[in-house]
């Protein structure tokens, strides 16, 4: 199934869609949509970067916004202290996020499953308190303001659209390459059974650390872009639980086993949540969202791509009838490979 889904054909379709998106700002699409498109692209990239560790390896990090935050604070603090232009310090955002990931990895990879989930959430809270309590570096709860680089509103939207698109394509390329590489196979082996993977000669710690650092570096870049786009960074929005939970939900909604899933999930998620907020208001949209989340996890555990994989696998594979019924059973999470 993996070979089938991460095929070049899927990637070609992706490339065509990206190419079509790239000319959008030069058509007569209203500015509002270009502006919204940035948030879709940002979250698509974020979900994709989360999925490199969370989806392929099965280590669910609830601290992904730590990397978004540290990426943002890297460019923010350098601007605050030395007035270095955020565009020049962008790569440093990836470096600092990767270093943080290495540090978290050293202390947290000893633990698994729910423990890893909670430990990463704690790291997130620790980062938030640090950002609040070190005003000499981060300007505390007031946050740091970043400069506008052009006063032309639609020009700015257009630039950010391309930055978002570029980062989304970059994360997707990385995820695609990892999925097709030996590293990707190792990661999936860890997901299915870590002890067996280790016995079979997979360098478990090594692979997890690489996956975590790549995932973090990409999130750091995205965080830097997000922060500069918002022109301000402050502790509660930089290190928020919502920002950590969103990519997880997108990946689960789309399907977390392939690079396609997080993209589909992010598009549906952002579009649906924007639509709900606009149409029924914040409170009800939160409520609908909660119900939606529960239903997706209970009814579609493999996400949207999981359904397609099932539909496609059924006619081509001549499975024995008993196997087919288990694969279609409501509680089964087995993949009809």
């Amino acid at each position, binding site marked *: 199934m993996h070979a089938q889904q991460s095929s070049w054909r899927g990637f070609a379709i992706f490339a065509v869609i990206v190419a079509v998106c790239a000319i959008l700002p030069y058509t007569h699409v209203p500015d509002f949509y270009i502006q919204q498109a940035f948030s879709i692209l940002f979250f698509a990239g974020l979900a994709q970067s989360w999925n490199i560790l*969370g989806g392929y390896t*099965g280590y*669910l990090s*609830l601290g992904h916004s730590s990397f978004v935050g540290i990426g943002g604070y890297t460019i923010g603090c350098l601007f605050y202290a030395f007035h270095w232009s955020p565009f020049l310090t962008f790569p440093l955002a990836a470096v600092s996020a990767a270093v943080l990931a290495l540090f978290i990895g050293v*202390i*947290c990879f*000893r*633990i698994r*499953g*729910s*423990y890893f*989930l*909670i*430990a990463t959430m*704690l*790291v997130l*809270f*620790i980062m938030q*308190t*640090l950002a*609040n*309590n070190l005003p000499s570096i981060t300007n505390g709860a007031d946050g740091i303001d970043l400069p506008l680089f052009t006063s032309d509103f639609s020009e700015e939207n257009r630039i950010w659209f391309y930055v978002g698109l570029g980062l989304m394509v970059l994360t997707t390329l990385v995820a695609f390459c990892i999925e097709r590489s030996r590293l990707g196979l190792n990661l999936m082996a860890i*997901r299915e059974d870590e002890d067996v993977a280790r016995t079979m000669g997979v360098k478990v710690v090594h692979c997890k650390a690489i996956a975590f650092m790549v995932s973090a570096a990409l999130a750091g870049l995205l965080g830097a872009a997000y922060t500069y786009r918002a022109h301000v960074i402050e502790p509660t929005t930089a290190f928020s*639980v919502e920002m950590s*939970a969103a990519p*997880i*939900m997108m990946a*689960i909604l789309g399907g977390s086993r392939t690079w396609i899933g997080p993209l589909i999930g992010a598009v549906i998620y952002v579009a649906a949540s924007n639509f709900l907020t606009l149409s029924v208001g914040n*409170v009800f949209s*939160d*409520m609908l*969202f*909660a*119900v939606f*989340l*529960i239903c997706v*996890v*209970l009814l579609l*555990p493999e996400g949207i791509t999981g359904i397609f994989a099932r539909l496609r696998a059924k006619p081509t594979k001549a499975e024995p009838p008993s196997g087919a019924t288990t694969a279609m059973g*409501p*509680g*089964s*999470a087995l993949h009809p490979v």
Partner: protein
Amino acid sequence: MLNVLALGILNGSIYALVGAGLSLTYGRQNVIDVANPAFIVVGAYLVLFFSQRLRLDPYIVTPLALAVLFALGAIVQVVLINPLLSRPDFEMHVQSALVLFGLALFIQVTLTLAFSADFRGIHTGYTDSVVRIAGLRLPLVKLIATGLASVTLLSLYTFLTQTFIGKAILATYANRETAQLLAINVKRIDIITYGLGTAIAGIAGLVIALTFSFSPSSVLPWTVIGFAVAVIGGKGSVLGTFIAGLTVGIVEAAVSVTISANWTYFAVYSLLLLVFVVRPSGLLGERL
């Protein structure tokens, strides 16, 4: 200084109570119960609601609130958690966390709609009374809270170790398959465990309603405290939970006196992370 530490101990016992329900329901069958702390806030609102409607003292209406919460907990187990039980372990972790996170969010929004987002508190004739013991000035409600927490934890301990159902809960915890072989109806035990955990969250809710102010957005801070206590204490260990609660309370008080109140959360999170890394099963929990 001493007064602050004493207050830390009193707060710590409240934290122990907050973590107790979670300690029962979290980690069991690979379920990450992020919804339990939301039920604490539900408990606080239920006590507020009933005591206002029936014009009775908050302590008297508590059993009513607990019954409602037990029923809610049982429903959650049957409707939301049971369908997940047949899935592989690594998927269940995240899926249970997501489903229950959704539930927590749902609860928070429902509370906002029903009671508004304002901070509330329950005021009784004795809310502001202060007791002087050996030169310390301690608020009466917190002393009552500590007493209540101790009694609750003690009864929980007795229940788990002395009664048949309690032992069955611990057995299911220790090894689900073996418990099943010993003719324990694990599905029913699940329901009882979750209901019990939710009801204990209700007692914590009562205590919080009387000693702190609360709002629908209190769910997140109490989730953090609850997990801190439940994790440090070790899942399913009542004694560990109590020690962990006191530790968190004392650390919080000590840091706020010696450094500054800004760093209390940092200290608590770091302590928790340390315990996680060094001993993920908690102080008195079973080794993994």
